């Protein structure tokens, strides 16, 4: 915690200094003011030379409140640990009952007497759809962020930034519904067109039907993570010191050169963190993909044929008819998803922590 000075630490030292430099002898008020400082040392009577000060009570309000906050803080660690423990505890029996290899089997039928299920296709679909979504969303999101922070008139930029923040709050089920009912038509037309003229490329091949494909899922996902990445990176771009930008302009840089030499390098850790957070969102997205993907099992790079599945979408779809082993199997797949997102998030946080200025809460 050494990077940012604690306000409370300032307050503590400030309090002590005031007491020491006081003209009259330590009065009643100064004594009480000293009390909170003393409680910080674990011994309980860390009063230094102030013998006249009261001993800190064992069961005082201060102790109780401190204990309460400590318990609340510990609860976070307990919850994270409990998530891992309970998921593992429920997943292990199902994994034991599995008659096929959990990592390589292509299919999901855990409800039969001979349970067979494998995570391979689901993990592949999760990673493929998220990667495609980010591939499409990141350049556009960065473009919008640059537009809002450096191209648009200030008022328009603020207003549109507010709108982008609002769009980040729209629930995913709405995007899923829109993708399934409306967006599928242009995507299907586009898929047919791609298949007609670029069918010789394997990812655009196949004989149809087209529509509820990885491409639709990835596009909907891209539109969903767009506001998140945009609002975070806009925040970072706005934090670029004006002196850096003006220095670049004063040296004769064009506006693009100014962005490239001053704004983008300054914002790079923030951009990476925003992208990683968007990736975390995309990996865990459930309902939008459950509505837009044509659920199939099988590893295929074909983007436009009906098909595709992800871990989260499979949980939402298969949960209804799952028996006990089926639930265990779904929990096991959730555990894999939890691990993947944990790795992504810890990496993102490590990058953010390297640069303390980026403190915007990433909700």
């Amino acid at each position: 915690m050494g990077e940012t000075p604690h306000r409370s630490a300032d307050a503590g030292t400030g309090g002590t200094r005031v007491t020491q430099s006081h003209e009259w002898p330590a009065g009643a008020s100064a004594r009480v003011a000293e009390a909170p400082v003393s409680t910080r040392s674990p011994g309980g009577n860390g009063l230094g030379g102030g013998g006249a000060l009261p001993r800190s009570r064992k069961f005082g309000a201060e102790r109780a409140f401190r204990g309460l906050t400590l318990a609340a803080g510990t609860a976070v660690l307990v919850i994270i640990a409990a998530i891992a423990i309970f998921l593992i505890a429920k997943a292990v029996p199902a994994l034991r009952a599995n008659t096929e290899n959990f990592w390589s089997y292509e299919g999901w039928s855990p409800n039969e007497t001979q349970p067979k299920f494998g995570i391979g296709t689901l993990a592949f679909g999760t990673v493929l759809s998220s990667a495609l979504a980010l591939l499409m969303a990141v350049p556009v999101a960065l473009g919008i962020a640059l537009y809002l922070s450096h191209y648009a008139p200030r008022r328009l930029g603020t207003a549109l930034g507010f709108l982008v923040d609002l769009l980040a709050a729209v629930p995913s089920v709405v995007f899923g519904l829109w993708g399934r009912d409306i967006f599928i038509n242009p995507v299907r037309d586009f898929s047919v067109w791609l298949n007609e003229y670029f069918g010789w490329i394997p990812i655009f091949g196949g004989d149809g039907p087209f529509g509820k494909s990885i491409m639709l899922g990835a596009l909907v996902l891209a539109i969903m993570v767009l506001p998140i990445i945009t609002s975070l990176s806009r925040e970072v771009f706005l934090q670029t010191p004006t002196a850096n930008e003006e220095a670049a302009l004063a040296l004769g840089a064009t506006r693009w050169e100014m962005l490239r030499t001053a704004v983008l390098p300054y914002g790079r850790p923030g951009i990476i963190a925003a992208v990683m957070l968007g990736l975390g969102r995309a990996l865990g997205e459930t309902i939008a993909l459950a509505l837009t993907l044509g659920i199939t099992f099988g590893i295929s790079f074909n983007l436009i044929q009906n098909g595709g599945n992800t871990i989260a979408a499979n949980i939402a779809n298969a949960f209804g008819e799952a028996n006990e082993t089926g639930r265990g199997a779904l929990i096991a797949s959730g555990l894999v998803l939890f691990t993947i997102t944990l790795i992504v998030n810890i990496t993102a946080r490590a990058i953010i922590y390297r640069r303390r200025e980026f403190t915007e809460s990433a909700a």
Partner: protein
Amino acid sequence: MTTTATSHRTRPPAQPASLRARRLPWYAAPAIAVAALALSAVIVYGTDIGGPVLVVVLGAILYLAGLFAAANAVEGRRSARNRTWSALIHSAFVLAVLPLVSVVWTLVSKGAERFDANFFQTSMNNIGARDANGGAYHAIVGTLEQVGIATLITVPLGVLCAIYIVEYGRGKFAFAIRFFVDVMTGIPSIVSGLFVLAFWVLVVSPWFNDGRPSFSGFAAALALSVLMLPTIVRSTEEMLRLVPAPLREGAYALGVPKWKTILRVVVPTALPGIVTGVMLAIARAAGETAPVLLVAGGGAAINTNPFENNQSSLSLFVYQQAGDASKYAPARAWTAALTLVALVLILTIAAKLLARRNRLSR
């Protein structure tokens, strides 16, 4: 397009004055745009490979190429790059606005279809596939109860946790808590649903329910609080850090103990910011579908008791109606989606306005 944007800017212009350097005339960009569109229309309709959308897309690509070539010839390479990139950035904006506007438009136009009193006064109980009526009363009740309980659980826990991090926590332990709160923001909602399923529904709830696992609205509230907790802790923490140190010092100097200082001085000062964070967390939780699907089960009837039996929620209602084969289901789904978005946006806008009035704003 780019030239007008340049003239409106408040910063000093990046290009040298036209006295010294040759510049493209103002009509160059629109002229290139028209030429590019015409050329692409000729190509597309001449070879019959697509429709008007392809004309626009191909036109945009030709426009970028033409603009680069023209600027490169007249103004030089650096200026040409500048023009091309700013055209790209503007088009990124237009590209993203289109689907988002489509989402909003569809939501309003389709959602208005069933946006009537009946929708908000009836449930889906005894509504068959051929019944045009049916509403979301039960789902609204479920959403309000689940989010309310989740808020009651999370707000005290989150605020106390933030107080620990900011006021009391020292060293590695506090750092670990901070770090894991950050990591927790990224937990997928479905994982939190699975956690509550494994913990509450399958292990704890049989104790209260004759040994059989039971779905309940309370379980959904637990799952939502796992999702809300990190958001609330982070925003509260930021707000507490913004409280000026002299306020605390003044309280200590007056002889107020630390816990009372925190409760009477620090937290009230940061209160508007904390409320903002809480409202944003509520808005996010209200829109979550997956955890409710896994642990509350959903149901067609009105169930006001969150501790027993299945409960629905607005977002789950949308999902279920979206999967329903009835021809009246899509209208119900869209109206419920509109209701949900209205609820979430009202909360978000109120939170943002509150944050703007906040004296401690960043």
